[in-house]
């Protein structure tokens, strides 16, 4: 009776909202653009677009790594450590030994190899030792960052091997307004990675397996998926993606600083969660995640334009995460409140 009508209403709203909050995010981005534009007309410019692109091109790849892990029901806080480890190591390696010095491609191949190795460490802790993912990745974060700072280097490196040096100044667009704003050519591989992850999640057995594990690991096992193998694969992929994103970041800033990135995990986790991914697993999408990353980049960009001190950006991201998760949780509670647990089970069974 009432459940039926409310269910119908919920269905209509959820259609507008998109399966993973995409609709809400598009509206939020549009409202933000209009409001900020009113206060600061220079917001509506090509430069803003290029700045957001510059900001997002590495974060969106980090977000893909986090998305895969969150859909599988885990959480990863080691991805920034993997990213800076791989990015910094490639520069050190290129400078000191000349390995992969002339080709940026080779640099990325080495980064991926490093990412896979570090991902294997996560896989060992999570799939092998069955540790809770948050605690395991907190531990590996410490190990990875410690090894980099203790054994690889602690200096900020301004000189790059020639291959990456030339990539860092290869731009897709340049906007010559008041100041030159540029967008690096790496936006193209970054978009390609998102498309690839989206196709993988949607159309491959591995992708469906990742969603299934996030839904219920035991059922997935009984359905015949090799759950342990899939978990290993998830953390290998996340490691490789994080490494690519890390090298993209190091290349873009043209100053390899080993103290960077770690500590900024929440920007990416917030983007993924805002993009509709459920921390309990089994839910999430690439399109939502990309919108989440863009929204956060846009907010940070707007705060700078409006002259808000940098410290408020941290607070804003924290607040945004809480608002985003609350909104999701409230709609879930609304559903739960309408019936007792027994009714809910009957609904689920029907």
């Amino acid at each position, binding site marked *: 009776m009432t459940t039926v009508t409310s269910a119908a209403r919920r269905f209509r709203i959820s259609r507008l909202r998109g399966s993973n909050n995409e609709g809400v995010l598009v509206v939020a981005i549009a409202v933000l653009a209009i409001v900020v534009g009113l206060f600061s007309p220079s917001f509506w410019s090509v430069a803003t677009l290029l700045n957001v692109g510059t900001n997002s091109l590495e974060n969106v790849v980090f977000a893909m790594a986090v998305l895969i892990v969150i859909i599988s029901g885990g959480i990863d806080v080691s991805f920034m450590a993997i990213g800076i480890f791989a990015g910094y190591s490639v520069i050190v390696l290129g400078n000191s030994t000349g390995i992969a010095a002339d080709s940026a491609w080779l640099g990325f191949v080495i980064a991926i190899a490093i990412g896979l190795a570090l991902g294997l460490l996560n896989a060992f802790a999570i799939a092998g030792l069955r540790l*809770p*993912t948050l*605690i395991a990745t907190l531990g590996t974060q410490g190990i990875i*960052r*410690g090894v980099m700072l203790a054994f690889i280097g602690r200096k900020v490196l301004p000189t790059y091997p020639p291959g990456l040096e030339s990539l860092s100044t290869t731009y897709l667009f340049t906007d010559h307004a008041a100041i030159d704003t540029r967008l690096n050519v790496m936006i193209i591989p970054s978009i390609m990675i998102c498309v690839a992850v989206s196709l993988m999640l949607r159309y491959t057995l591995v992708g469906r397996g990742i969603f299934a594990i996030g839904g219920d690991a035991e059922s997935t096992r009984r359905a015949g998926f090799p759950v342990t193998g899939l978990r290993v694969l998830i953390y290998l992929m996340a490691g490789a993606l994080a490494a690519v994103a890390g090298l993209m970041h190091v290349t873009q800033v043209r100053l390899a600083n080993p103290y960077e990135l770690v500590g900024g995990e*929440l920007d990416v986790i917030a983007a993924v969660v805002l993009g509709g991914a459920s921390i309990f697993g089994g839910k999430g999408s690439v399109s939502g995640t990309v919108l989440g990353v863009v929204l956060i980049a846009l907010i940070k960009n707007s705060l700078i334009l409006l002259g808000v001190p940098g410290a408020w950006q941290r607070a804003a991201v*924290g607040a945004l*995460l*809480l608002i985003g998760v609350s909104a999701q949780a409230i709609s879930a509670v609304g559903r739960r409140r309408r019936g007792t647990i027994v009714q809910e089970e009957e609904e689920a069974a029907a």
Partner: protein
Amino acid sequence: MSDASTLIQRLMPERSLLRLAAFAIVVMIVFSVMSKPFLSVINFQSMGFQVAEVGLLSLAVMLSMLTGGIDLSIVSIASVSAIVTSQLFAATGASQSSAVTPVLTALFIVVGMLAGTAIGLVNGLLITRLHITPILATLGTMQLINGLMVAWTNGQAIYGMPDIFLAIGTGTVFLVPVAIIVLMAAALLTAVFINRTATGLRLKLVGANPTAARYSGLDNDRVLTLTYLGSALLASLAGIIIASRAASASADYGTSYVLVAIVVCMLAGVNPNGGYATVTGVIVAAFTLQMVASGLNQIGWNAFHYQIVQGVLLIAVIGLNTLSDQGVLSGRLGRPRLRRPPAPGAATSEPGS
């Protein structure tokens, strides 16, 4: 929960405490062999000053883990109480000693700790009213509060506290650091709270099985809110000690303590899925980790080596606990391992929470 796993839970405390004690003794022997001054009174005193804040933050994390959650905002909460207290000193110019200084100091500490504890209330409400998972709720408040504190202090450290305030973190009574006495008092109160009061028992029940707790008529929301209030109170106290030891307060102090506190809880055998925690274990583990830190420092290792050691310890300890739960380490060595959990109940040991 099946009979087997409750049995394991009942046997685990003693075993993990024994293992921890053995580890502590090994650490002590190894470092006293490697470094002469390790076993000196001065060294133990200096460890005592540092262990108090780590111990208090670990107790805070332990409380949240007891209910199956986690509090990642402890360091931000500590910075709130430290910054509010020191801003009050700065605003009133109370750093110059006068007759009312002790009263003002006590008052400002209470206000600072109330401010920190209020964040715990926010955490509790986010988790119970809005049903946000503890990880995300406390991650969000951690970032939000940290940003607000950096903005408030312009990223600068705040100085100017009276000597009586600094005595909390740097003074000694009969060679024993005051901070240790504070830690021990807090630990005792926490132990009494979780082991001897009805509310403490409720905490454990909610952590062991929230559904069963709800069906037995417990107000889970109330219990969880109390948990995060308690954890914030302990973190606020840690903030006061950090500020008084550093003679200043800053939003950037102690950011590495989240990992340390979780490592301590894991060393102590606290079950991150809820239901079991031991204050004794946490205190012993905090001292052990402090011995590791101080010993490594004396043999010339740096903070980054220590970070590696923490990570390895964390993974090794839980790995060891998980493997021994599965019976791999005791008695079943010769027999082939079960590849799958034997009963559906065993699926609760799955990672992914």
